[in-house]
């Protein structure tokens, strides 16, 4: 640049350097925007990648428009203030300009609408799925059913987090791994398979969301919603309920564990063996006959509560004579089930929350005849949902025993056989 004065030369060089620097910064920023803790995760499915791309595309369009419009505005605020620009102009319309800035946004919108519609259409195509999972929302847990496989289990907040999240628990949530994003049982899925989800609810509306899969739908009673995911990478993907569903809405984690297909098949086979399936649908399948071959599952997450009762034959469908359980065993199991199933309303202290959730301390039901107590657990009453479909006979017996022997209550033990006798009445 021979004809330029050194000063101009310096300015030009600075501008070029600044632009290069900015370019580097933008490139870096774009790079760190993938899976940054302040941005949408890019996820692990083709759909989630498309969604992430759309998100960033829309974002940058907004940034460019914003920089242009507000660049003009801030320039005007500076240059057209009274001390610099004492005599205002008088123009107040221009048909050409007004038409131009009506049409220009249309074109930008079309440029956004086309790829968005394309992605949406793909998301809605649930055909040709390799397997189907039925997801049911409950206050406040999820049930996963492997349709046509006879495998079904519930998934609730993991117990350490459940203890830490109690009011004034004194437990620092930072010491709990994956606080509120960990469950007792994971939804195990195979990678590389198109999984169709059928989503519904048993009580109020819930929302099932796993950000890494870009899958979110509402679980609505009376409706079955469909969505799908084909996960590319093995891994554990976490989310939680997204529709306000009552007191413990914040404590309904969703954990999906994607494993290789052989691992998945192995896990499924073990579940079929172990799954004593308190849910009647599952219990009615041939799987129920395979109980004898039950083995402890190698994937720790698969220690479903539904798997526990496999030890005894207290299945609603298989009306074999249930084993008698010892007091300590009943109370120990009962305490766990109480914490995950009952404590949300009746509280860990058994004090309840009047008037909606009655206290169990000194309760007439808990202190009264065993049959009434069992029936209320199985069938529910008023705001209390029926727990019969969720809990096995052994579970109900354990939790009833726990309630009858805690907080100063002393009204005896309950055996699975007593529950079995009342179920279905």
């Amino acid at each position, binding site marked *: 640049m021979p004809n330029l004065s050194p000063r101009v030369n310096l300015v030009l060089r600075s501008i070029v350097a600044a632009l290069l620097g900015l370019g580097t910064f933008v490139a870096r920023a774009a790079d760190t925007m993938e899976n940054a*803790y*302040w*941005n949408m995760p890019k996820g692990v499915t083709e759909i989630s990648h*498309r*969604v992430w791309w*759309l998100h960033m595309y*829309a*974002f940058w369009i907004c940034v460019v428009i*914003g920089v242009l*419009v*507000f660049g*003009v*505005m801030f320039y*005007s*605020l500076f240059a*057209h*203030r*009274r001390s610099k*620009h004492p005599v*205002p*102009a008088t*123009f*107040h319309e221009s048909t050409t300009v*007004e038409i131009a*800035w009506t049409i220009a*946004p249309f074109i930008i*919108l079309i440029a*956004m*609408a086309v790829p*968005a*519609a394309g*992605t*949406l*259409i793909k998301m809605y195509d649930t055909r040709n799925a390799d397997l189907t999972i039925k997801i049911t929302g409950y206050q406040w847990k999820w049930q996963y059913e492997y349709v046509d496989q006879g495998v079904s289990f519930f998934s609730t907040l993991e117990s350490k987090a459940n203890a830490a999240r*109690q*009011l004034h628990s004194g437990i620092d*949530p*930072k010491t709990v791994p994956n606080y*509120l994003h960990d469950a007792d049982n994971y939804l195990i899925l195979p990678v590389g398979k198109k999984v169709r989800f059928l989503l519904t609810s048993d009580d*109020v509306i819930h929302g099932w969301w796993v*950000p890494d899969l*870009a899958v*979110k739908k*509402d679980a*609505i*009673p*009376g*409706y079955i*919603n469909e969505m799908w995911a084909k996960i590319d990478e093995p891994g554990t993907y976490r989310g*939680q309920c*997204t529709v*306000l569903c*009552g*007191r413990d*809405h*914040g*404590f309904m984690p969703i954990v999906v564990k994607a494993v290789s297909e052989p691992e998945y098949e192995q896990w499924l086979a073990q579940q079929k063996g172990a799954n004593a399936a308190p849910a009647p649908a599952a219990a009615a399948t041939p799987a129920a006959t395979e109980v004898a071959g039950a083995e402890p599952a190698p994937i720790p997450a698969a220690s479903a509560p539904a798997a526990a009762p496999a030890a005894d034959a207290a299945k609603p469908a298989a009306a074999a004579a249930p084993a008698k359980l010892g007091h300590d065993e009943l109370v120990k199991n009962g305490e766990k089930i109480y914490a995950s199933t009952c404590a949300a309303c009746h509280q860990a202290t058994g004090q309840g*929350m009047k*008037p909606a959730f009655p206290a169990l301390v000194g309760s007439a039901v808990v202190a009264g005849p065993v049959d009434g107590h069992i029936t209320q657990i199985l069938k529910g009453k008023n*705001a209390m949902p029926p727990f019969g479909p969720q809990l096995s006979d052994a579970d109900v017996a354990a939790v009833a025993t726990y309630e009858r022997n805690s907080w100063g209550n002393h009204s005896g033990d309950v055996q699975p056989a007593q529950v079995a006798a009342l179920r279905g009445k």
Partner: protein
Amino acid sequence: MAEAHAHDDHGHDHSHDHAHGPDKGIMRWIKTTNHKDLGTLYLWFSATMFIIGGLMSLAIRAELWQPGMQYFDPELFNQFTTMHALVMIFGGVMPGFVGLANWMVPMTIGASDLALPRVNNWGFWILPFAFTLLLSTFFLPGGAPAGGWTIYPPLVLQTGNSFPLLVFAIHLMGISSITGAINVVVTILNMRAPGMTLLKMPLFAWSWLITAYLLIAVMPVLAGAVTMLLTDKYFGTSFFNAAGGGDPVMFEHIFWFFGHPEVYILILPSFGIISTIIPTFARKPLFGYASMVYAMGSIAFLSFIVWAHHMFTVGIPLAGELFFMFSTMLIAVPTGVKVFNWVATMWQGSMTYETPMLFAVAFVFLFSIGGFSGLMLALAPVDFQYHNTYFVVAHFHYVLVPGAVFGIIAAVYYWIPKWTGVMYNETLGKVHFWWSVIWINVTFFPQHFVGLAGMPRRIPDYAVQFTDFNQISTIGAFLFFIGQFVFFYNILRCALWRTGMKPATARVWEGAYGLEWTVPSPAPYHTFEDPPHVTDAESPWAH
């Protein structure tokens, strides 16, 4: 604001009787049918509700300071989120706008009062009862409603003793809003000063005319929805009960058919306010007056055909999803026109930055940020990731706080010299502005990040990776709230403690146009008993 005592010396000499002024003491306020008195009452009511709703938001932010449950049971937290929204929307923003309409619609169109003054009194005095009912539910066994302000069944049907009070309070608010809206429509269509054609009318009146039509159209829909909830709960119907053949999703459709126009009810009057303030301080007529009116009309029309974008995740069919996505995106066009017009009004003006102008400029900038996130939310496939997260919370707080609420604040600063006859303290005004604009962004901007990172809304506790942004947000919320007392002090000074303060001139702002500036400051108790003459000089936008 409380300026309205009897001025018998306001230069009128009419044959009709003026001997008695309003009642003295409390009875003046209970019996008043004067639009200025009622405007004042509405505005104080709104301020009270902003404080109550603000305290609830601080309770929410305090619990969200760190993971774990520190102060409240989750059920009480849900009550706070639910009541915060109901109080802010129906008690804060809407009565605030109605108060401004009471004061300024008659004065800007040259009418002596609203057309139906007794209805006006009734419309206001319903509100304290409605909100006493609603807020009293906190003290009932079982507490306040906790199902969210969207009151979706079946969850809301689990509400205990407070449920019928919630329904009744919503009915009362609806009646109040509808009476106010009818009053505005009748006044504007019948009582404009001679010569003021609709397209010479100031934009604040235009914005309220459109808002009033929206209110009349949708408040009855909400009333119907809550009545169906009531019969579902107590009279054995199954409108929304799937087990009885009903449909919970139908409630969402009905609610959002009300709810989306409702969110424009919460912003359109602010559009009118900003369109009034920017030309004044730019000393230049509003750019594109006619297109501003058409843009508001288009926004109002579109508001009726976009409701299901609140429901992208309920599983509506693909065709419906596409329709609502496209129609929602269209809203960006008229909204963009408005923003461009505001910027073009500033362009080549001769601007000064008194407090109302500062709030107006912040409105244009920050409301647009809410508009941008709204455009992103309109894209259905991406909305699956945004829906019901803090990204949405950030979005609607950007359009509601630096949008609707900054509009109300700007209007109060702009017109309070006219109401009280004295200037507010400009230094305190500027302190209030900078304090507010900084902390409102500290409060709500990080919520975009934490929402994108996966934090759902309406949760009392969260995963530990969301802690940093939540703490920033909580700090911002507390400081923003405290700063508002500077504003309240500034108003109280003008309204109650104004002895010795510098009187305001009739025109107040040198660049101001409109009939309200042709009457003295403070405005006499009765204005425009003789219809004013509308001159081109007072409507420079229209020629």
